């Protein structure tokens, strides 16, 4: 087991109250595995990834739980110890390639900074490695482009640079937070393909954060669906897409436009909006938007329960009532 997250809670203390952005989240990632976390804005998926990196800024912070990376609890480490892991053993690429690179530094200096922070090598060797990494991620004439500033590159190229930087110290875990969202569709496919190749090449695990189920289907081995800070469903990709259980997952899947859909049916939309984090509905947080909401759902929060490796948080599949998950 490479990473084991147990009962993670991340909170933001605001003037008007405390927002629990990540609420009792547990999952694991194996070596070489691609795990996707899907959810809408505010579902807590990005906050989860930043919690792993120890990058939650005030007024937020990890309030509970454990993050076991190679059996070492990251939540117990000092910032200094975390710095040795960040960019080295765990690295991250972000959604906005346009703004995630420092605009006043040359590409090579930004990548070399990462390398020289974690490896005891000379400047010359770091530069050589930088060029090699740029080549690996498919940047043409890498030796010249290394001298470019970010604004001289396209979005897709910048995301390749970000990837090169994140991979430069051969991490065990790469967190990719919406790596393709800001890119054109053709470029999206290229970046996903790149991630796939890199996973093979470096045998690293990838935590893929996205709201795009298409990306999940393309890339992931296993999927976690998050809603309002909680995991509502977890399964391997095939199972999730073929047998979605939670009404939220079902809704998400139905709202993907399908080219082969011949009928005039309007695209399905989940009604309502994500609730305000300070005014959560009592009971299940999805209850006010759920088509299959029962009375019980407005009163208590269902537990996440596991049946045959498929986890779901919904009373529709309550063991006590249904006996078995596949009853439906």
């Amino acid at each position, binding site marked *: 087991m490479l990473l084991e997250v147990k009962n993670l809670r991340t909170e933001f203390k605001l003037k008007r109250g405390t927002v629990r952005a990540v609420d009792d989240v547990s999952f694991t990632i194996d070596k070489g595995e691609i795990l996707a976390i899907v959810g809408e804005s505010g579902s807590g998926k990005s906050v989860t990834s930043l919690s792993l*990196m120890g*990058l939650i800024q005030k007024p937020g912070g990890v309030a509970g739980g454990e993050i076991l990376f190679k059996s070492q609890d990251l939540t117990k480490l000092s*910032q*200094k110890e*975390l*710095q*040795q*892991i*960040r*960019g*080295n053993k765990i*690295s*991250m690429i*972000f959604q*906005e390639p346009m*703004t*995630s*690179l*420092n*605009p*006043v*530094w040359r590409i090579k200096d930004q990548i070399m*900074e*990462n390398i020289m*922070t*974690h490896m005891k090598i000379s400047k010359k060797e770091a530069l050589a490695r930088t060029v090699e990494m740029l080549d690996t991620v498919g940047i043409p004439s890498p030796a010249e482009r290394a001298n470019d*500033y970010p*604004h001289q590159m396209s979005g897709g190229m910048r995301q390749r640079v*970000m990837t090169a*930087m*994140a991979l430069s110290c051969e991490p065990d875990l790469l967190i990719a937070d919406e790596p393709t969202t800001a890119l054109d569709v053709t470029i999206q496919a290229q970046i996903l393909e790149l991630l796939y190749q890199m996973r093979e090449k470096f045998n690293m695990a990838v935590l893929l954060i996205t709201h795009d189920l298409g990306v999940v289907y393309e890339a992931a081995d296993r999927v976690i669906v998050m809603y309002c800070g909680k995991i509502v469903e977890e399964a391997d990709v095939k199972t999730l897409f073929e047998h979605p259980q939670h009404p939220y997952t079902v809704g998400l899947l139905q709202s993907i436009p399908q080219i082969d859909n011949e009928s005039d049916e309007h695209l399905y939309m989940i009604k309502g909006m994500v609730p305000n984090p300070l005014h959560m509905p009592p009971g299940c947080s999805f209850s006010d938007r759920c088509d299959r909401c029962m009375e019980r759902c407005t009163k208590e929060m269902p537990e996440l329960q596991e049946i045959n490796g498929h986890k779901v948080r919904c009373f529709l599949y309550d063991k006590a009532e249904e006996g078995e998950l596949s009853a439906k």
Partner: protein
Amino acid sequence: MLKYIFKRILMLIPVLIGVSIIVFLIMRVFSPDPAPIVLGQHATQEAVEVWRQANGLNDPIYLQYFHYITGALTGDLGISYYTKMPVTKEIFARFPATIELALVAIMLASFFGILIGVISAVKKNSIFDNAGMFIALIGVSMPIFWLGILLIIFFSGTLHWLPSSGRIDPLLQPLDITGFYLIDSLVTNNMDGFKDAFRHLVLPASALAMYSMAIIARMTRSSMLETLQQDFIRTARAKGISEGRVIIRHALRNGLIPIVTVIGLQLGSLLGGAVLTETVFSWPGIGAYTVACILKSDFPVVQGVVLLIASIFVLVNLIVDVFYAFLDPRIKYSKKEV
């Protein structure tokens, strides 16, 4: 780049001509006749007439301006009504003192301003932030001449630590090489002179620096707060580099542009503030001298000084603009931007 700089320098000319016109209008057209002031109330009509003729004051006003501006272009700013010395000589005898004071002040202001601003931004809403911003608020609210007076009362009067007036002990005065005593005393290995010049500089430079420091601190804070929100700061943190490096090498480096702009503008206001500081500390510079010249209607000197200070001001701003290109590779001064 060179073309841009050249273009900008060309554009300075109309501004400086404008400055000369405005000063000329104020001093020679709207001001009362200088003759009775310069020659005294009891001068004879004849003497006044002779003096006016000699100083070209009987020519039509446009001709006076024409003579003045053609002279200025060849480096001749006229002759002081009182000392009968060329204005350029009068100015350059005093200018190094003012520049030395202003340069030391701007260095103090920039260093402490940026320091306070960065700490305030990084420790936002903490006690450091509140204290820093309180100091900055007092700094912009306090008249600099009063701050100078307070410093004298406390450090010269009560504690007897530092001298309250002058530039240096006359016995220690270094050879005049650059006119900057700190430099002149150092290169002539006059360590006592250096120490003394430094001790004389501390109070006036601090008084002069306070206002600019406050402005720079506020600017730095807001610029840093904005920069620290940017995505690339998160990227930098994700690399595992130290927080100090994130703040200095990434955030401050990016937030520097508005700060540099403010520093450039402050240098202009420092030259203005020098008028007051020099008066308080009897600093033998151009500021106090100019006030005296305005009061006794020594117009040629006043015109010369204002023209010189305005030139420095616009030049500094030009340098700041050029400096941007080094701070931010995205800025290119080649195409349509002028």
